[in-house]
């Protein structure tokens, strides 16, 4: 810690939401790079050469953790030869460590699909988690770059205030969604559902990480006839066909939600991301 930086702190974010958050908190004191986009499945990413090259020069690594990046991050770490961002270094930041994780399995077995023993890693879909992670990340920025600590603290305070106001606004807008039964493609929005009080009554994937099959979808159509859900949720990186199939046969509206920042026109930053999610949930396309 306490390296004197001649240039801006270089942040390597595994997912775009953490690049956006680091940018909010660091301003012009940081440069950010997102390894993935909202159109990519963060479970399945190639450890491609350009990512290794980017990690080589990073001062801070910000990832979701909870085994989300298990298929590619370890390789980037060993290949990058960068001692500053190895696990256990001050430059290694796992966002999911700072929040209460949902769906921590009691028993793990691969027959259940690609389950995460540490719990659901998609923690960024609840703005209250973003607030907690923001304060931890701001402290980490200050620790890595002490001369600018005051700037990071001021930015964090400003962001925190704007975020609290926005969260209150979103909660008010989304109040009618409380108790609403929904079907999801993958358990990607569990934190969002928990925040807004939506009830998950089915998933398009038979098991996490296993693509939906026609038989599974036909079964879901039958179940929806008995006890219909109000919405079908899928994310910007999912193939929309499974959601379309169910929507057409049941008449339940489907909603594409941006997976993260950059997943839709409006989701340009973290504020836009939740603005868009709340708006899309409020007026689903028929």
């Amino acid at each position, binding site marked *: 810690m306490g390296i004197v930086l001649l240039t801006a702190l270089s942040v390597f974010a595994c997912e775009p939401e953490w690049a956006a958050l680091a940018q909010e908190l660091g301003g012009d004191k940081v440069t950010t790079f997102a390894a*993935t*986009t909202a*159109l*990519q*499945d963060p479970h*399945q*990413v*190639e*450890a*491609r*050469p*350009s990512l*290794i*090259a*980017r990690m*080589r*020069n990073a001062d801070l690594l910000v990832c979701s953790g909870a*085994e989300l990046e*298990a*298929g*590619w*991050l*370890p*390789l980037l*770490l*060993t*290949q*990058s*030869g*960068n*001692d500053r961002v*190895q*696990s*256990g270094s001050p430059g290694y930041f796992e966002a999911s460590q700072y929040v*209460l*994780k949902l769906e*921590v399995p009691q028993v793990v077995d*691969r027959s259940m*699909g*690609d389950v995460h*023993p*540490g*719990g659901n890693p998609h923690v960024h879909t609840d703005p209250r988690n973003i607030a907690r992670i923001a304060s931890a990340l701001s402290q980490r920025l200050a620790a890595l770059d002490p001369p600018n600590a005051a700037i990071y603290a001021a930015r964090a305070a400003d962001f925190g205030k704007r975020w609290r106001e926005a969260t209150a606004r979103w909660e008010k807008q989304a109040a009618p969604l409380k108790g609403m039964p929904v079907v999801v493609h993958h358990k990607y929005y569990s934190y969002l559902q928990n925040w807004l009080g939506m009830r998950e009554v089915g998933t398009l994937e038979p098991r996490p*990480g*296993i*693509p939906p099959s026609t038989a599974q979808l036909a079964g879901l159509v039958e179940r929806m006839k008995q006890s219909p859900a109000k919405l079908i949720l899928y994310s910007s*990186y999912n*193939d929309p066909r499974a959601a379309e199939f169910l929507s057409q046969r049941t008449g339940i509206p489907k909603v594409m939600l941006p997976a993260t920042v950059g997943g839709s026109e409006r989701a340009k930053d973290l504020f836009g991301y939740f603005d868009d999610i709340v708006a899309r949930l409020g007026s689903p396309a028929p």
Partner: protein
Amino acid sequence: MYRLLLCAAALAAAMPARAEDTELREELKILQQRVQELESRAQQPARPQAENALNPAVSAILNGVYANLSRDPATYRLNGFVPTSGEVAPPPRGLSLGESELALAANIDPMFRGTLIAALAPDTDAIGVEEAYLQTLRLPRGFTLKAGRFFSGVGYQNQIHPHAWDFTDAPLALKAFLGGQLGEDGVQLRWLAPTDMYWDLGAELGRGRAFPAAISDSGKNGFGSTSFFTHIGGDLGTGTAWQTGLSHLRTSPHERQFDDPGSGLTNSFTGSSRLWVLDGILKWAPNRNATYRSFKLQGEYFRRSEAGDLTRDVTAPTVGGYSSRQSGGYAQAVYQFQPQWRAGYRYDRLSPGSSSFSGAITAADFPILSPYSPKRHTVMVDWSPSEFSRIRLQLARDYSRAGEPDNQVFVQYIMSLGAHGAHKF
């Protein structure tokens, strides 16, 4: 929990001062305490707290194959090329268990990471050490040091474990020039340049424990093999990534023996062997999302020159001068056309190049080395129900043996148990 706490707090605040006021406040305090307790307990990671929480990541690979071959695999040879003593023949006819792999990996301390991969051959009592190496994690300035036994960084496919190959068997070029797959005992130093474009440089010093070095101990101190490699790589557009590399391997085989099936004699070579490898790989997926569709193009070109003394029949030696310049390569393409399904084609071709014999030996003494260009066409289709299992059908027409094309059908399964392995680009 928060809501509960807020309600209680609001209630307490709204209460007019009464006799039971203190009592209520006490209750609120207890409630607050319990909430805090619950929260702190919930924040505890749900991981085993016992000693074995620090166990290394364990994984195993199960691999089995059904082979239908029109030629007996015991007669397998690559005509025109010196036999390597490596495992290059096709699997036995019928059903057979392939090598099972057992892997352990963990960070040893903040400085080192260790990996052990054992190969359990089904029909011998031996457990082979495929790889066993340590790797530094915290050398400064982009340096990484590896030491132990590891797959050499020469070429592209050589470093990839067979379970992650796109075809059941190795390309002919790897069979001819690296004995199937080259594992070296030694050290590897790698440096990654601090550039936005990927660029690495590496060097290896090894014992020279396998082909193209001699398997028998040369009995000298120092290094039996030296290699150098460099790679560059980057992105093209929003869906394509590429990498290309050049490597060089130098060995000085001492009494490298080989059996010539044409003459029935055991011969040996002492001299120098120089190998150059050019490799390239390109991967594409729409928006880099490989869940639904993806494409992969891979190729390598090998060029080897050897010069030294060739001995005909080690039991009644006749020695002469020998030199050769040979080359070969392969190109393969794999297309994932829907989730879980991939199809691929591979073309292999080797060129015997030129060779010269001098002194007491002639080309006629070594029937296996008489000029011939082995080639092979391979197609495959595989199905992967999850990223941990794969079932593959592969068809090939293999012209490794001069004048004896082999029609090959393989049905293979590859299953991976345990820790989630990360795959190299």
